């Protein structure tokens, strides 16, 4: 699976972040998560909170922490205020005690234009795999882009092999779509 790796964060960890942090003043990851964060990926003090926020938004507990660092660096490069808004979004989610992204989607928070734009900017980075446009665009990932995750059992990630020569001619029935 393209977006999976050996990164030790789990969906349960992310939920625990929400539960532990509820009622506090910051979207702060528990110590265990901080200890497990790969230091090379993001050495900023709030790296664990960023990772937790992105995993919460994507609903992918194994979202690579290095991609989170890439995304924040890229989004921060084009918008110096992005990190602060992301921190505010994380705090708001924690304060509201939202258990998952669907709850966030259904909450008044998602109606807030700033929170909504912040969330969509992060999701765009992970799903589409890049930030920005043209020569100024920055790659977050290609084969690990989440847009490929839900169809990986049916179609190739373009430029990667799937079933060998002529494999597609042997498929007689459409996969569920």
């Amino acid at each position, binding site marked *: 699976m393209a977006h999976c790796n050996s990164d030790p964060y789990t969906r349960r960890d992310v939920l625990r972040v929400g539960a532990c942090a509820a009622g506090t003043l910051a979207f702060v990851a528990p110590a265990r998560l901080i200890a497990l964060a790969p230091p090379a990926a993001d050495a900023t003090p709030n790296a664990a909170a960023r990772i937790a926020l992105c995993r919460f*938004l994507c*609903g992918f507990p194994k979202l690579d922490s290095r991609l989170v660092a890439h995304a924040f660096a890229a989004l921060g490069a084009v918008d110096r205020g992005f990190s602060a808004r992301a921190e505010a979004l994380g705090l708001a989610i924690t304060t509201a005690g939202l258990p*998952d*992204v*669907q709850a*966030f*989607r259904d909450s008044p928070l*998602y109606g807030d234009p700033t929170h*909504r734009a912040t*969330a*969509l900017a992060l*999701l*765009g980075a992970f*799903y*589409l*795999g*890049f*930030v*920005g*446009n*043209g*020569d100024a*665009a*920055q*790659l*977050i990932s*290609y*084969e690990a882009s*989440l*847009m*490929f*995750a*839900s*169809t990986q059992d*049916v*179609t*190739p*990630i*373009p*430029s*990667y*092999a*799937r*079933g*060998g*020569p*002529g*494999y*597609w*001619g*042997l*498929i*007689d*029935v*459409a*996969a*569920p*779509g």
Partner: protein
Amino acid sequence: MATQFDADVLVVGSGVLGSLTAHALATAGKAVILLEAGPRVPRWQLVERFRNVADKSDSNRPYPDQAWAPKSSGGSHSDGYLQNVGPLSYRPGMLKLVGGTTWNWRSACWRLLPNDLRLQTLYGVGRDWPIDYEALEPWYGRAERALGVCGNAADDQSGHGGGAYPPRSEEYPLPMLPWSFYTRTIATHLRAAGFAFCDEPSARASQPYAQRPACSGMNNCSPICPIGAQYSGDVHATLAERAGAELRENAVAFRLERAGAKIAAVHYKSPDGRETRLSARAFVIAAHGIETPKLLLMSDVANASDQVGRNLMDHTGIGLTLLAREPLWPGQGPIQQGAMLQWRDGEFRRRHAANKHALGNAVANRPVAARLLAQGMIGPELDRRIRHDAARYVQVTTAFEMLPEPGNRVTLSSHKDALGLPKPQIYYDVDDYVRAGAVVARQDQRRFVEILQAEVLDADTGWRNGDHIMGSTIMGADPRNSVVDGDCRTHDHENLFLATTGVIPAGGVVDPTLTGAALALRLADLIGRSV
């Protein structure tokens, strides 16, 4: 080789047509120098660049963006290169590296129909070719072998539902690739409704062929086939070198030197501006349909007719994007497999443009995900909808026949590139012939929507380039209104030949590369026998 010449034949441009020419002549024992404006880049690097380039919306972007040899788009040196001054922005695919623009193509290799070459005689519009299909037919066969074309020789490619057509003296060198579930399903639905859906012949190896591996359906034919199963011009650039041709990279031809009625030399610039002169007995300009007329205009040669750069044509078209009711799963196999040709030929061509509807088969996740995110969709619903929509995404591209219009033209801009050479200036528009054809095509498109019980995502794409540059160095029997004769020899200079799709005076609705390849092999044979 005579000592007073640097080469027997000098070829400008190492794309598919230049490299085929150079290879044929080198194989025939001629001393050949092949000039290429850009560098040599190995396939693995291009594949890596494709994967690592952030914004993949411009398929040119993975390719070299160099100041001395700009491409048509996709980089800071290239984006301002083509200077459009007309109603439509014309920015066809153009790459400058060894192998040329066929690094990034869909490799459709159709033959023209015999009637396409007699457009004026049969339908009273456009121009006739000065040669007929029979003269071209054996060269089509050689071109298909050179490029390793797969196809279904039993198809009626005229779209009339008859027997095998157009006439061919040999089978395709490779059997057609299998159709994907998506292509089969749509073909079944559309054929049942009366549409003439047939396989699209392509330069993809359906079996191992000439040291190319078989296509593995990585669905990345454009921007780049990762394994070289799809033909690209570097194949024959390499073969030309092995046959003895000398290939000079990063050599930007900027002047053809005249000596009386002949061409005596080509002058080229290196990236640092240093100039070099090369003499030869014969010259073949194969520098793309935009750059070839630009070089002729800069050199003030071959233009007694004042037709160089004029009559610029493409297969400008319109697009349609749908979500079908049923899951069809585009993305399995190559990115394009079939086309509908019921409007390819007939008396209607007196009144409106012919058309070809082509069915895209690219993995749809990127446009699907971008659209859903733009709608604000997140969470499990986003993942569910990506799968749902990617399974049902249908793209149809409709290309139109165009007629040569002198006002559609390439000229020399007052703006200069990094070497101080004029940038190409382009005036481009579509005429009422095309607009009338679009009315008919949209009726077809509405039927596609009904047949697939589809939701329309985009039916108003505006005019789109087909990347099929034709007419800009137009072929004809009369030197007063054309640039080259039926052998692709310029009327004005007996030792100057043009190997470019720009010579095509009537291009029907099909991708012109195979026709250009056939003409290139034909002119190489002529030069080989006379030089």
